[in-house]
């Protein structure tokens, strides 16, 4: 008594004793452009700053229906000129060759909640979790458990206009999300790490499934992520090959005595339940992850697993090794993670309430339901720095919490874009993990007018079916120059960053130089910038903005770059080589010497590229 007890297995975990150690954030008291936006599905008020809307495309008619989650859009994946947008009832493929006018390539009706997609070559993977998904994709629910599909569907999308379902890979816990990890050894093989938050299905429904509270039981479907191995040439043979048991050893010691925990269990005798039977041992550490993000170039995985954020080495995807785990009483539902490009920082989100609740109201706590920034130490341990929550109070009609996002490839900074459901799209700089801040935003008014409260009569304005609409940005991602946001209730938004005092023309141009052939946000690619003037000028703009180098030098360097750009190749090479040497000489005296050094290297690379 009287002291903090921890088991040795918990020694690697840190627990914040106080949130006040972290940077405090408050809702703005002044005027925010997002306040008081008019409600409406397609005619809601819109506010934006630091970005513009390039296009909005409504959901396909196949998915356009009444309230509820049955036909909402979910996550996205990208390949070439195509956007693959998941939906709880299938998916859409959009040709975005012209971002101002996306063209529908295909809409596939296939009941698959929640339909999170990933793309790899010609294969599209779709997560299926709910109870009503059938092997044949059909409507009407599952009448025979043998028809129940929970796991990952694989489609051949080699013809984007005619996708074909080629395999349903069944998993014991279904698939809330999944994450692609390419085999480090074999280019023809990928692994899917499957996160499923529900309990295991009964063995009568799917052979081999087993659910108990014994973390050490190797045959237990719990306490593991199912790992599906896909041989790209034989996707029809994809199957679960192993379980990633990344939670082993995280179980807190069993509680001594039953105490009040075992007493006073009320409850009616449920179906399949006997109210007189002793209660099962309580679940303790994580049994599942909600979502995992990987950074294959760094062999790292960040798992958002219940009340923990977990760091895992995935050098061998069939045998992952946990490196560290973080817990924080403010973060009760760790969600997605985004790594900084250097792999030294990480942003975790807290999906407080699961996404269907309005948790960005002025009365909601700011350190809950937002992001937290952590750094990864040289010893591969977490260090927590700050919280960041959408700095705009939303209404009670807007389901809002931090959700999915990914990096915006601005060189020299750590910037991400993120969907906050009806809180809209937010662009955040977390270069300084202690002081994340907002760079840009896009927001709409709520889908619904104010709702009825506590069983009151349905309002005429909202029709007889008084349902609150769940909507907003499921995820917002930067892909090849544009920001794509999957609007659950409305459709697909394409946005573009615009210059501001916080983000320069050069930084936006440098980001646009980064192109990927395909992009799955939860399988993070390493960003490499080409040798280009906008990249060098981005560093220069950052040095000017942050007073990282004397003003006389930054303006001289700017002029030298302008002059060099106009020269023929040989002269340009000579001028840039000389400039690189000069800038190298500035490193020692500069306040931000690391950035000056990076800029000198970028100028050198630019010189080498001058041909």
């Amino acid at each position, binding site marked *: 008594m009287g002291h903090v007890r921890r088991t040795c297995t918990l020694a690697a975990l840190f627990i914040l004793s*106080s949130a006040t150690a972290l940077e405090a954030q408050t809702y703005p008291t002044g005027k925010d452009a997002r306040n008081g936006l008019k409600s409406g599905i397609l005619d809601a008020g819109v506010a934006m700053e630091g970005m513009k809307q390039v296009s909005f495309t409504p959901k396909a008619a196949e998915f356009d229906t009444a309230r509820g989650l049955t036909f909402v859009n979910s996550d996205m994946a990208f390949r070439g000129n195509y956007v693959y947008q998941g939906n709880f009832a299938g998916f859409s493929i959009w040709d975005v060759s012209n971002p101002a006018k996306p063209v529908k390539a295909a809409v596939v009706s296939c009941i698959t909640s929640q339909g999170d997609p990933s793309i790899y070559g010609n294969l599209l993977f779709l997560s299926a979790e709910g109870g009503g998904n059938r092997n044949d994709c059909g409507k009407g629910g599952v009448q025979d458990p043998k028809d129940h599909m929970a796991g990952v569907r694989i489609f051949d999308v080699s013809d984007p206009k005619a996708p074909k379902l080629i395999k349903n890979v069944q998993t014991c816990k279904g698939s809330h999300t999944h994450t692609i990890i390419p085999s480090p050894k074999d280019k023809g093989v990928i692994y899917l790490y499957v996160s499923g938050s529900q309990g295991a299905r009964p063995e009568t429904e799917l052979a081999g499934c087993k659910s108990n509270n014994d973390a050490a039981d190797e045959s237990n479907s719990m306490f593991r992520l199912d790992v599906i191995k896909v041989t790209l040439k034989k996707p029809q043979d994809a199957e679960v090959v192993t379980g990633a048991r990344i939670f082993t050893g995280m179980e807190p010691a069993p509680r001594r005595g039953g105490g009040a925990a075992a007493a006073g269990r009320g409850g009616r005798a449920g179906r399949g339940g006997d109210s007189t039977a002793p209660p099962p041992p309580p679940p303790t550490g994580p049994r599942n992850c909600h979502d995992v993000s990987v950074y294959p170039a760094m062999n790292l995985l960040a798992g958002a697993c219940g009340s923990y954020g977990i760091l895992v080495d995935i050098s061998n995807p069939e045998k992952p090794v946990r490196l560290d785990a973080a817990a924080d009483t403010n973060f009760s539902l760790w969600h997605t993670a985004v790594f900084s490009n250097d792999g030294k920082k990480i942003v975790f989100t807290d999906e407080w309430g699961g996404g269907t609740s309005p948790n960005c109201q002025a009365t909601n706590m700011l350190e809950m339901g937002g992001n937290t920034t952590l750094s990864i130490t040289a010893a591969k341990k977490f260090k927590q720095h700050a919280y960041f929550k959408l700095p705009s109070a939303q209404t009670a009609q807007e389901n809002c919490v931090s959700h999915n996002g990914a990096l915006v490839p601005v060189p020299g900074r750590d910037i991400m874009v993120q969907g906050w459901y009806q809180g809209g799209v937010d662009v955040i700089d977390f270069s300084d993990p202690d002081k994340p801040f907002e760079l840009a935003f896009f927001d709409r008014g709520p889908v619904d007018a104010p709702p009825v409260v506590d069983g009151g009569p349905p309002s005429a304005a909202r029709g007889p079916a008084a349902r609150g609409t769940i909507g907003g940005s499921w995820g917002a991602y930067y892909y090849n120059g544009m920001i794509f946001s999957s609007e659950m209730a409305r459709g697909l938004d394409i946005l573009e960053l615009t210059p501001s005092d916080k983000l320069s023309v050069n930084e936006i141009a440098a980001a646009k130089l980064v192109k990927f052939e395909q992009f799955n946000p939860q399988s993070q690619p390493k960003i490499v910038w080409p040798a280009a003037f906008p990249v060098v000028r981005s560093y220069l703009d950052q040095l000017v903005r942050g007073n990282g180098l004397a003003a006389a030098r930054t303006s001289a360097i700017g002029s030298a770059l302008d002059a060099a750009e106009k020269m023929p190749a040989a002269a340009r090479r000579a001028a840039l080589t000389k400039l690189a040497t000069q800038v190298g000489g500035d490193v020692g005296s500069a306040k931000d010497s690391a950035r000056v050094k990076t800029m000198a290297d970028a100028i050198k690379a630019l010189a080498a590229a001058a041909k």
Partner: protein
Amino acid sequence: MSGMDTPVTVPKGALYTAADVHFMQGMIAHHAQAIFMSRLAAAQGANPRVLKFANKIDQSQMAEIRLMQEWLVANGQTAPDTASYHHVMMAGMLSPEQITQLKAARGPEFDTHFLTMMIQHHEGALKMVEDLLASPLAAQDVDVSVFANDIATVQTAEIGTMRRMLEQNPTQP
């Protein structure tokens, strides 16, 4: 005392079952008691972390009650209100004796009782989800299915958080 045993009429062609309706109705009472428990924290000297956590439960479960009520109303079913916890007993809910005990506790003793009883309460919610999923043809309506999964995910995670707070609490037995 048992829960929602009112007969339920499910329209032909609906994708939900009586078990889904009972789950949503019963969970309103279950949540309402959790909110009642959480609102004791401020006056009874909970430590700041426990208080903040109690506020979180209050805010999240209040929003969820609205979701459940809206689902029930939209489907033409009876939607209980937040007073229903007085007469509906679901898995994990506190007995009258436990409520008396919780209301009498102050400071660290309150923290211990609150966390212990809320863990029990959350485990009851997990049991309700488990029962729902084990019920034939239930949890196929996407809204119910997502909501049930959210409850399982969120409350399992919160149990983990509460266990750690309990381990750090000085009155831990």
